[in-house]
C-alpha cells in the first residue's frame, strides 16, 4: 500500500476570525520518513497538522494520504490511516481507564472484542505501559499520560503518525523515553515541535514554517546550520549544535 | 436552592422524577435529531465549567457579601434549551451523588426547579425575544436580567410548592413563599447581571459564537412550551392531591385555633387531599410509639415510649455488633499498608 505517502498541495487556511494561518503550503512526505515541523508560535504548525487527518479542511488546495484525497467522504478511511496525538493529553484521554482509553478507537472502528483486546495489549506493550491498564488516565504522570495517548492511537494501527509537541511539559527522563519510542517506530511520522534536539534525534527531514509558509525544507543538520534562516524564523540552533559554554567544544 | 430528600414525600418526588425524566428523554431526542454530534463533548465540558465557575465568588456590590454563578441560563444561552437541560440534569446528578446536595429522590424536583425554568421558559420566552441574536449590550443585559429573575422566582415557587405538598415541613405555604421569593429575587438579579457580563465578554472576544450558540429554534417551540406548561401544572396539582403525608397539613388545620400563622390559602385542598389520603392509604403510618397523632386523644403513654427507646437502643446495638463482626479482616492490613 502506498498509504504511507502524505502530500499537501498549495494549502490555504484562514480561521473564522480572519487570521490567515496557512498561506500556500506544499510538501510530499514519503514512506517511513520522519519529518519535524518547526517554527515560531503561531507559524501554523498545529493548523497544518489538523489538516492531515481532516480535522480542518483547507480553504484552498488539497491533502492526499496515499492515493486518497482528504474529503468529508474519505474521512473514516483517512482517520484510520493517520493517527493523531494531541499536544495536551488531557484533551485526548477521557475514558475511565487506560484499557478503555486504548480500546476506544478500535471499538469505534467496529472490530471484534478479541481483536480489540489483542490490539490494546500490543499497543500498551509498545509504549511500555501495560502495568497502567487499569488506572484512570487522568491520574497518571505527564510522561505516562503521553505514553497512553500514543498507545490510544497506535491501537488503530495507523500508517502515519502525526504528533503535536510530543515532548512538551515532560521531565528530561520522560522526554528521553518518548524520543526513544518515536525512534523505534517505522511509521511515516510528522512531528510538530519546538524541541529542535528532538528533531535531530528522530527526524530525517525538517520543515520550517514561517507565517503560514514553508521557509525551508531539508535535512535537519543542513537546515539547523543556517543561522540567518533560524533567526528570521524565531528559532535557535539546537543546543547540541551550539558551542558548549563550559568546555568550549562543539561545531 | 436544592430541594432535599428529607423534605419531600414519595408522591411529590416520584411525580417530579417522572416529569424530569420525560423532559430529559425528549431533550435527548431533540439533541440527537437536530444537532450535530459535537454537542456531547461540549455539553460535558460546559457542565464541568459550571462547577469550576461556582468555585469563583464575586463580591455583591454594596452588601459586603459574595455569591456565585448558578449557570442555568448561561448554559441555555450557550447550548440551546435542549442540550442545556441535559447538562443541568447531569450537573445536578453529580451534585446529588458526590456532594450529597439534595439527594436522589429530590433530583427530579431539582431538575425541574433549576433546569425546566431557565431552559424552557426564561431562555425561549424571555431572553431570546429581548436579546435577539445581536450583540447589543443593553438587550443582552435586559434579557439575562429578566430571564434569570423569572427563572429563579419560578424555581423558588416550585420549591415552596413541593415542600408544602409533601407536608414534612410545618412551614405554612404563604409565609414560606414570603420568605423564599425576596431572597430569590435578589439572587436572580445577581445571576442575571453575572450571566450578562460573561456572555458579553465571550461574544466580544468571539463574535462567531453569538450565532453558533443560538442552538435550534424549532417551529414547534411555542406548542411544545404550552404543552410543557400544561404538564407542569397538572403534575403540580396531581402531586398536591397525591401528597403522601397530608396528615401533617390536616394536623395544622386542626390546630388553627392556637396557631395564628397558619396559611389561609389551600385549606380546602389540604382537607380534601387528607380525606383522599385516608381513603387510599396503602401503608399504615407508624409514628414514634404506636399511636398515630390523629387517634391519640392525649399523649403517648410513658410505657410505650420506654419500649420504643429500648427498641431503638437494641437495634443500634445489634447493627453495631453486626458491623463489627462483618468488618473485613483485611481492613487492618489495608489501613496499615
Amino acid at each position: 500500500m502506498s498509504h504511507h505517502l502524505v502530500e499537501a498541495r498549495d494549502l490555504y487556511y484562514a480561521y473564522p476570525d480572519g487570521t490567515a494561518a496557512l498561506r500556500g503550503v506544499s510538501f510530499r512526505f514519503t514512506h517511513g520518513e520522519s519529518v519535524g515541523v518547526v517554527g515560531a508560535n503561531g507559524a501554523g504548525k498545529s493548523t497544518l497538522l489538523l489538516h492531515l487527518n481532516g480535522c480542518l479542511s483547507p480553504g484552498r488546495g488539497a491533502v492526499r494520504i496515499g492515493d486518497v484525497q482528504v474529503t468529508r467522504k474519505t474521512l473514516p478511511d483517512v482517520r484510520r490511516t493517520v493517527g493523531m496525538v494531541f499536544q495536551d493529553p488531557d484533551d485526548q484521554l477521557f475514558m475511565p481507564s487506560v484499557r478503555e482509553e486504548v480500546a476506544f478507537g478500535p471499538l469505534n472502528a467496529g472490530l471484534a472484542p478479541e481483536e480489540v483486546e489483542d490490539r490494546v495489549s500490543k499497543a500498551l506493550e509498545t509504549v511500555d505501559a501495560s502495568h497502567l491498564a487499569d488506572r484512570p488516565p487522568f491520574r497518571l504522570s505527564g510522561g505516562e499520560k503521553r505514553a497512553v495517548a500514543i498507545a490510544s492511537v497506535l491501537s488503530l494501527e495507523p500508517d502515519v503518525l502525526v504528533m503535536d509537541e510530543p515532548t512538551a511539559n515532560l521531565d528530561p527522563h520522560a522526554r528521553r523515553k518518548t524520543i526513544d519510542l518515536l525512534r523505534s517506530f517505522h511509521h511515516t511520522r510528522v512531528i510538530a515541535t519546538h524541541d529542535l534536539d528532538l528533531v535531530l534525534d528522530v527526524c530525517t527531514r525538517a520543515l520550517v514554517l514561517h507565517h503560514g509558509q514553508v521557509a525551508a525544507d531539508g535535512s535537519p543538520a543542513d537546515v539547523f546550520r543556517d543561522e540567518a534562516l533560524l533567526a528570521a524564523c524565531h528559532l535557535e540552533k539546537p543546543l547540541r549544535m551550539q558551542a558548549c559554554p563550559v568546555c568550549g567544544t562543539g561545531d | 436552592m436544592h430541594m432535599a430528600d428529607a423534605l419531600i414525600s414519595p408522591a411529590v418526588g416520584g411525580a417530579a422524577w417522572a416529569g424530569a425524566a420525560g423532559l430529559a428523554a425528549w431533550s435527548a431526542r431533540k439533541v440527537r435529531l437536530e444537532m450535530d454530534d459535537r454537542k456531547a463533548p461540549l455539553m460535558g465540558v460546559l457542565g464541568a465549567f459550571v462547577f469550576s465557575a461556582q468555585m469563583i465568588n464575586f463580591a455583591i456590590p454594596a452588601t459586603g457579601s459574595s455569591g456565585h454563578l448558578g449557570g442555568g441560563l448561561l448554559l441555555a444561552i450557550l447550548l440551546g434549551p435542549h442540550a442545556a437541560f441535559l447538562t443541568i440534569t447531569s450537573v445536578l446528578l453529580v451534585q446529588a451523588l458526590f456532594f450529597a446536595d439534595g439527594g436522589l429522590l429530590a433530583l427530579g424536583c431539582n431538575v425541574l426547579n433549576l433546569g425546566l425554568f431557565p431552559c424552557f421558559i426564561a431562555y425561549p420566552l424571555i431572553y431570546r425575544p429581548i436579546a435577539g441574536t445581536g450583540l447589543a449590550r443593553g438587550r443582552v443585559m435586559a434579557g439575562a436580567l429578566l430571564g434569570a429573575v423569572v427563572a429563579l422566582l419560578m424555581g423558588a415557587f416550585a420549591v415552596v410548592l413541593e415542600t408544602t405538598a409533601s407536608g414534612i415541613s410545618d412551614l405554612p405555604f404563604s409565609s414560606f413563599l414570603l420568605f423564599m421569593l425576596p431572597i430569590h429575587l435578589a439572587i436572580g438579579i445577581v445571576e442575571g447581571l453575572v450571566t450578562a457580563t460573561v456572555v458579553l465578554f465571550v461574544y466580544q472576544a468571539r463574535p462567531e459564537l453569538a450565532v453558533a450558540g443560538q442552538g435550534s429554534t424549532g417551529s414547534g417551540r411555542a406548542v411544545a412550551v404550552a404543552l410543557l406548561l400544561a404538564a407542569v401544572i397538572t403534575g403540580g396539582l396531581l402531586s398536591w392531591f397525591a401528597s403522601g403525608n397530608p396528615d401533617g397539613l390536616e394536623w395544622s388545620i386542626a390546630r388553627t385555633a392556637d396557631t395564628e400563622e397558619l396559611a389561609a390559602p389551600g385549606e380546602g385542598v389540604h382537607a380534601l387531599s387528607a380525606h383522599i389520603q385516608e381513603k387510599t392509604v396503602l401503608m399504615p403510618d407508624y409514628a414514634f410509639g404506636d399511636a398515630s397523632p390523629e387517634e391519640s386523644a392525649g399523649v403517648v403513654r410513658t410505657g410505650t415510649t420506654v419500649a420504643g427507646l429500648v427498641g431503638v437502643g437494641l437495634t443500634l446495638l445489634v447493627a453495631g455488633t453486626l458491623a463489627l463482626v462483618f468488618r473485613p479482616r483485611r481492613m487492618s492490613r489495608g489501613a496499615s499498608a
Partner: protein
Amino acid sequence: MAAIESALLQTGRLDTLARQDTAVHRIDPRAKVITTACFVLLVVSFDKYTVAAMIPFLVYPLALLTVGRVPPGFVLTRLALVSPFAVVIGVFNPLIDHEPMVRLGPVVITGGWLSFASILLRFLLTLSAALLLIATTGFNRVCLALERFRVPPVFVVQLLLLYRYLFVLAREAARVLRAYRLRAIRSRGVSLRVYGSLVGSLLLRTLDRGQRVYTAMGCRGFNGILHPSIPLRFRTVDAAFVFGWCAFFIVARLYPLPQHLGHAVLEFLS
C-alpha cells in the same frame, strides 16, 4: 466557595474508595442503583413524626460502610459540608408545632421536635445512601448502569465527560483564582467587573477545550456512542442483593421493628 473547593478535592478520594475490591464493590452497579432507589423511596415514605421505626434502615448504610471499607468519618464530614437547606427548613417545625406527642416521665416532646428529628434522620439516611452508592461503585460504573437502563447515549456520554473534566477545569479555575487573589489581597470576592472577563476567559478556554476534545474523539472514530469494554454481568448474587435488601426495607417499613423488640424485651424482663 471553600466548601465546593474542598468537596471537589475530596471527590478524588471518593474515586479511590470506589476502586477498592470488596464484596460490595463487586456487586453489579445496576443492583446497587435499584437497591438505593428502593431504600430512599421507603425512607421518604415514612410518616413525618416517625423516628424510631426508621432506625433499622441505618443497617443498610452501616453494612455498606463496613463491608465496603469506607471510613465512616469520611461520609460524616461530607454530610457536614452539604448545603443545609433541609435542616434550615426543618428547624422551623419545633417553632410552629407545639403539640405534645411523647411523654417520658416528666419530659414531654412536642410534635415539632419529633418531626425535626425525623427530618434529620431522613437527611442522614438518604444522603449517606447516595454517597455510599458512589463510594462503593464509582461514577463510571453508575453511568454504565444508566446506559443499561436505556438512558439516551448522548446523556451518558456528556455525563461521563462532565465528570472527566470536572477536575481539569476545577484545577484551572483554582489557578486563575489564586493568580487573582495574589494581586487583589483585600477583596473578599472577585469584583463584578473583573468577574465577567475572568470567568469569561475561563469559559472561552473551556469552549476551545470542548472543540479539541471533540476533535480528538472524532480522530478515533467517535460517532456519538460509547462502547463500554467492561461487560456487566447480573449474577445470582446481585439478584440476591437486591431482593434481600428490598425485602428487609419493606419489612422495616411495615413493622416498627424497634418497638416490637422493645416490647418483647420488656415483657421478658417482667
